[in-house]
């Protein structure tokens, strides 16, 4: 009896102490030698979060410090400023996403090159910016994949609308190009309009309604980017009208929208592997930092997920762990 009580008290004490350890501050870790900076267009836990996780994972193995910079909303000027900040901070390498092909962007990449800092672009490419290499989706091919899905969904004929964020977004336009090229092979298929959503939900939905009014026999919608996908899903869920016949192919669906895919309201989702992008980008960057100059672009996996494989969305969109974003 006495032994049991003693043991109980001992266990209790140990438990209390270990609970006390919960409050212990994290250990101080010696600063890492190599520092790389990842500048993402948007700081989120979704797509860019996964990319950041990929980088962090790879960097952890190689003992490289990663600073993740992101923005609360798309802002090219800010992105350029913080790319400059990374250069002035004498980072050992930079990973960022390409954007509109402006002189400022090329200039900042050039500045990095002058400072001897390699730059790897992920997600979207700016080929003539002087970056070391591009790691990401082959957007044209991804567009073709979406086009094939759409043709199959519509039964080879019908009118289709396309939603993009901005018409000057390179990779979206590459996707649209691939999409259109596939549709062009089928005489019955026709792209009636490319809608510019401008990453604004109300604006986008308004435009979409108008397209549907203008084209009553609209058979399909292709969302060429993640934000449009999100808006489309909400539109399908919340709108009072019946869009059962509308065939929807989307890009970069997130796991919280998985049920919509599973219900069949969306025909298929084209998923990019952001994690792989980050991981491969980190690998390439470290090769570049080690002095390798001849780097070829790397195309990461793209997969089309249909209704039956809806559970795979989870695999392509979950983010285990938090990214300590520096949000500006």
């Amino acid at each position: 009896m006495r032994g049991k009580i003693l043991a109980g008290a001992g266990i209790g004490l140990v438990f209390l102490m270990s609970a006390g350890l919960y409050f212990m501050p994290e250990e101080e870790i010696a600063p890492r030698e190599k520092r790389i900076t990842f500048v993402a267009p948007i700081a989120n836990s979704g797509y860019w979060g996964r990319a950041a996780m990929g980088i962090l994972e790879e960097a952890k193995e190689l003992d490289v410090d990663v600073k993740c910079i992101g923005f609360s909303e798309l802002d090219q000027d800010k992105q350029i400023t913080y790319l400059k900040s990374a250069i002035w901070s004498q980072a050992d390498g930079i990973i960022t996403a390409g954007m509109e092909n402006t002189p400022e962007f090329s200039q900042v990449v050039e500045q990095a090159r002058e400072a001897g800092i390699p730059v790897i672009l992920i997600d979207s490419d700016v080929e003539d910016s002087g970056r070391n290499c591009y790691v990401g989706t082959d957007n044209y091919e991804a567009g073709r994949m979406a086009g094939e899905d759409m043709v199959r969904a519509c039964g080879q004929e019908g009118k289709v609308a396309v939603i993009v964020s901005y018409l000057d977004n390179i990779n979206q336009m590459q996707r649209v190009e691939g999409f259109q090229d596939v549709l062009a092979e089928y005489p019955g298929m026709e792209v009636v309009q490319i809608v510019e959503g401008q990453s604004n939900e109300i604006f986008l939905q308004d435009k979409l309604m108008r397209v549907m009014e203008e084209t009553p026999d609209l058979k399909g919608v292709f969302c060429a980017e993640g934000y449009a996908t999100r808006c489309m899903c909400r539109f399908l869920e919340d709108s009072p009208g019946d869009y059962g016949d509308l065939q929807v192919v989307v890009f970069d669906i997130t796991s919280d929208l998985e049920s919509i895919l599973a219900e069949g309201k969306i025909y298929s989702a084209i998923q990019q592997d952001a994690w792989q992008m980050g991981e491969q980008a980190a690998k390439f960057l470290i090769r570049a930092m080690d002095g390798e100059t001849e780097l070829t672009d790397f195309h990461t996996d793209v997969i089309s997920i249909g209704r039956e494989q809806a559970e795979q969305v989870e695999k392509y969109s979950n983010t285990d762990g938090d990214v300590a974003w520096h949000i500006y």
Partner: protein
Amino acid sequence: MAYLLRKWKDNTIKSRMYQYLFLVIGAAVLINAATMLFFQINMGRYEKTMEQVLELNHFYIDLEEGNSFLGNYMKSGTPEIYQSMEAALEEADYLLAALEEGGISQGFVRDIQDMRRMLGTYLEAARAIQEQLFRTDETGFTSGMLETVLELYDEAQEVYALMDGEFKNLHLSLLDYANTRMAVLNWQKKFFLAEWVGAILLMIFWSILRGRKLTEQIVSPIQALTEKAVEIRDGSMAEFTEAHIQEAGSRELQILIHVFNMMIDQIQKQFRATEEAAAAKARLHQQELENLKITNLLRTSELRALQMQMNPHFLFNTLNMIAKTAYLGDSEETVFLLQKTAQLLRYSLDYMGKSVTLARELEILDCYVCLQEKRFAERIDFDFDLDERFHQVLVPCLILQPLVENSITHGVGMYTSGARILIRTRYLEEERRGMISVVDNGLGMEPQQLARVRENLDTMEIGGASCEQIGLENVYMRLKNFFEGDAQMELYSVPNQETEIRILIPAKERGE
């Protein structure tokens, strides 16, 4: 050490109390130490973070100062201002280096590193400006140079703006971090309070359990003892069985119980011994009683029977003699004889089994002697030699007559003449005893016969002896009974000369 360990384990109440105290104090110290440690670590971290915030502030002040110096330098070009700027920036760099190497929280290391590199870039730009301006002093001012200087200054300002923004972010983040530390500290305080309360409750609970157990260990043996004691008080000691105590009981109580059991065992043994002794005594008493009864029987019925047996024999002879006398026609003599016989008979009837004075006994003996004188006429000569000093002593009746009869029967009965019987009393002053003796000059006894008779007298074996001695033994027995053993009968005999039967009884002189 070994001694202490033995003490610790010796299972006494004291050692148990010490064990308990030691454990409680140990646990308290341990919890306290852990609490203090955790608290100190977090507190230290918080204070360090606050220090870092201050250092960062200093850095910022230096940076601002440096930047304004750079502005002034741009306007004036004075080397002293440039020196001040460099000094300020170097101070700022020193502070950042201190922060970088001094172990700022992990999340901020990279920011400090970046900040420091940016400061380096800024300083480079400033130096480049100074170089340009210095060259300007030597070679004169050109528009290209102005452009370069302005470009450099713009870059420096851009870097400065970034650093400014970065500082503000970092400052906020650090404060935020410090705040979370503080929050954690507050939580920790609450947690440790809860932990303490929990620990105290646990200890109280434990104490209660422990105390109960300890008390039980003390009380239950005492209770057992008490129950046993009550059992002994109310019941029989003989039925008492050992008081038992559980094995875990403390040593003191085990000893107590052991001693108690031993004591009771001892008492029981004593009890039994006493009881046995009492039983033996009772048996003895019973036996004595029985003996007494037998003696009484002797005293009463048997003796009476013997007396009765004696009387007819004598009466027959006497009546025979009286008849003879009557036949001879001596009426006077006959009357005398009858008177004496009647006297004798009355005496024996009246005093049968009672005591009489020796004087009275002698009186009656005189009657008897008279009758015998008549019977034996000249054949036996009776003499009395009396010492009357003790004749008031009480004796059983009819003790002398059998002695005289015995002397006649066994001593002088066969003599035709010259027989003599002397009845003598003497008071032995020194011994305070009276002596009565009957002496005859008859046949007497051979030494062997004398020894046998004496032996028979000593053992009082009635019936074992020959019929002749029944009278003697009877007298002796009665005397012994009467004087409770303090009477002697002695026999002396020289064959054909003299035989003496002597009785010694306790006596007092008359008037004493």
